[in-house]
């Protein structure tokens, strides 16, 4: 208790210096947490992906569609448990700034493959009955203030024209990692419309979603599927949903690497600042440490004092930074709207924030503690005079 009191008193001996160090730490910990959360948000799709789902797309490009007729052949592949498909709609709601993903899907086969989309039974029935109906995720509905029954106009880009949909239901996520920022519409409605407008674009799907029985057989089933369509006019490329999602993330990998680098640079900078503070602190107290050693305190006592003080300041900065990250992340998520489907500070990030703060504290104290533990008592005592 005495030692802890001494640590506390030492830590606030120069209140302004300690306060500024803590402010620096808070900023660094917040920056680290926010940058990591942004990176996590980028990977959210991949993280939320199911190990029992494969994505089959055109081997040429994601923009090249596959014939709907492949569905029956896919269903017959050994190990396949269910088949559905979707098309990226790419519509604009009022303005380009309101971007959110829209997929045309087959509700009867799609929803069983995505149990994480929780739709009320009545809403689901209402959606299935209305071919111009859509369901949207909770986050998206909240953002635009949509209510069931609202008309939602979209300006088509890939599928030109003005489309009007009726909101038939709002789905929730089974867990916090589920993307509730999407709109799902009827693929059949899209297909009929395209058939009427331009027959050659009918019966085409963007990707097939393949449900598999055993996640351990993902590679084998993928090979079987692609083997089915080898040397055909539309060869396929099948991969796990996670690999598919990571393919999108890879497109912006340079940005992510830069963000991660910046988050670590921030930490290195504050580490240097705090090490400087602790070195300055130790030098000022040279005579005190020499006195303690003269009184019979072992060098480890001086080491404990310096490490304790540094870790205490670092922990204070870390905890304050962590507490500040949560409201800031909520503000950021609100400001960026639907840019990130899932934007939340994960437990792992919070743990890392605290760990980083403690590492900063420990590294900052290492050199002065080592130096002070080795001071010559006589030289240290002379420092007074």
């Amino acid at each position, binding site marked *: 208790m005495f030692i802890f009191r001494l640590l506390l008193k030492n830590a606030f001996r120069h209140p302004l210096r300690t306060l500024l160090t803590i402010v620096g730490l808070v900023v660094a910990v917040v920056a680290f947490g926010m940058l990591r959360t942004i990176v996590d948000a980028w990977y959210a799709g991949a993280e939320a992906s199911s190990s029992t789902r494969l994505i089959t797309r055109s081997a040429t490009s994601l923009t090249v569609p596959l014939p709907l007729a492949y569905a029956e052949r896919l269903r017959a592949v050994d190990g396949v448990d269910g088949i559905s498909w979707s098309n990226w709609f790419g519509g604009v709601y009022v303005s380009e700034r309101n971007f959110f993903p829209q997929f045309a899907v087959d509700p009867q086969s799609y929803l069983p493959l995505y149990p994480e989309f929780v739709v009320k039974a009545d809403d689901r029935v209402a959606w299935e009955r209305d071919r111009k109906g859509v369901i949207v995720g909770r986050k998206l509905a909240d953002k635009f203030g949509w209510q069931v029954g609202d008309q939602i106009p979209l300006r088509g880009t890939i599928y030109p024209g003005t489309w009007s949909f009726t909101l038939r239901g709002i789905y929730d996520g089974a867990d916090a990692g589920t993307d509730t920022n999407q709109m799902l519409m009827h693929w059949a409605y899209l297909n009929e419309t395209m058939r009427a407008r331009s027959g050659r674009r009918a019966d085409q799907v963007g990707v097939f979603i393949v449900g598999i029985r055993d996640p351990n057989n993902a590679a084998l089933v993928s090979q079987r599927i692609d083997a089915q369509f080898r040397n055909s006019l539309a060869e396929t490329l099948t991969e796990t949903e996670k690999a598919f999602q990571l393919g999108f993330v890879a497109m912006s990998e340079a940005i992510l690497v830069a963000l991660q680098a910046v988050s670590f640079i921030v930490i290195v900078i504050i580490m240097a600042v705090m090490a400087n503070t602790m070195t300055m602190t130790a030098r000022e107290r040279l005579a005190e440490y020499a006195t303690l050693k003269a*009184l019979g305190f072992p060098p480890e006592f001086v080491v404990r004092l310096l490490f304790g003080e540094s870790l205490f300041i670092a922990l204070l900065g870390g905890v304050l930074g962590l507490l500040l990250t949560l409201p800031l992340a909520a503000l950021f998520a609100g400001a960026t709207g639907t840019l990130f489907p899932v934007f939340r500070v994960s437990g792992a990030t919070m743990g890392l924030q605290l760990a980083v703060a403690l590492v900063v504290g420990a590294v900052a104290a290492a050199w002065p503690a080592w130096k002070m533990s080795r001071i010559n008592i006589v030289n240290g005592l002379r420092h*007074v005079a």
Partner: protein
Amino acid sequence: MATALIRIHGLSKTYRRGEQEIPVLLDIELEVMAGDFVALMGPSGSGKSTLLNLIAGIDKPTTGTIEVGGIDIATLGEGALADWRAEHVGFIFQFYNLMPVLTAFENIELPLLLTSLSSRERKARVQQVLELVSLSDRADHYPNELSGGQQQRVAIARALVTDPTLIVADEPTGDLDRHTGEDVLTLLEQLVDELGKTIVMVTHDPKAASRARRVVHLEKGVLVDEVPEVSAVPAVSAVSELPAAKVTA
């Protein structure tokens, strides 16, 4: 009949500055009786502070032996020497060397952290020495709230609280005015007369030295002459007032 607490034999200390060797103490022979009050005097650079540091076990001799209470402290390792200092030596410095963030009470309690005493025992012991130095009413004051004389009395209490056999004082009145210095010296005399402590004090001040029972002169690292004892070493009377504290760290 008092026995020798300190026996110094063939003691030399040489400092090295680059290639150059600087002798500071040369072949010192000295004995200090238990319960004695010895003043080390000499001009600057004569080696008196170095001799005090060697006796206190915060410096190591180049050659020779320093027996304190029968232990040759020159042969002790750093850890053992620290334990020895904690148990046997009390320090009084010219500039008091108190921890500025600790109250007078806490400063005095500090060396007791190295003992096996419980918190309650520590507090009782601190109260006892605070009364001895007449600072009970200043227990909760920080060093910067105390005068120089009061700070030195806190330092004396800190030196005394572990009930050491030997107290070393480096210019204890050097930073005090004459009147306050006299008070401090009176207190040191009391420690010798009433508690039977052995004090070795370095001083420039002949008046301060005159309060000691024995004055040893150093010049250029050599003991040059010695003023004989001014009075007989008194019988130990009040040592038992402070319960023993076993050093644990």
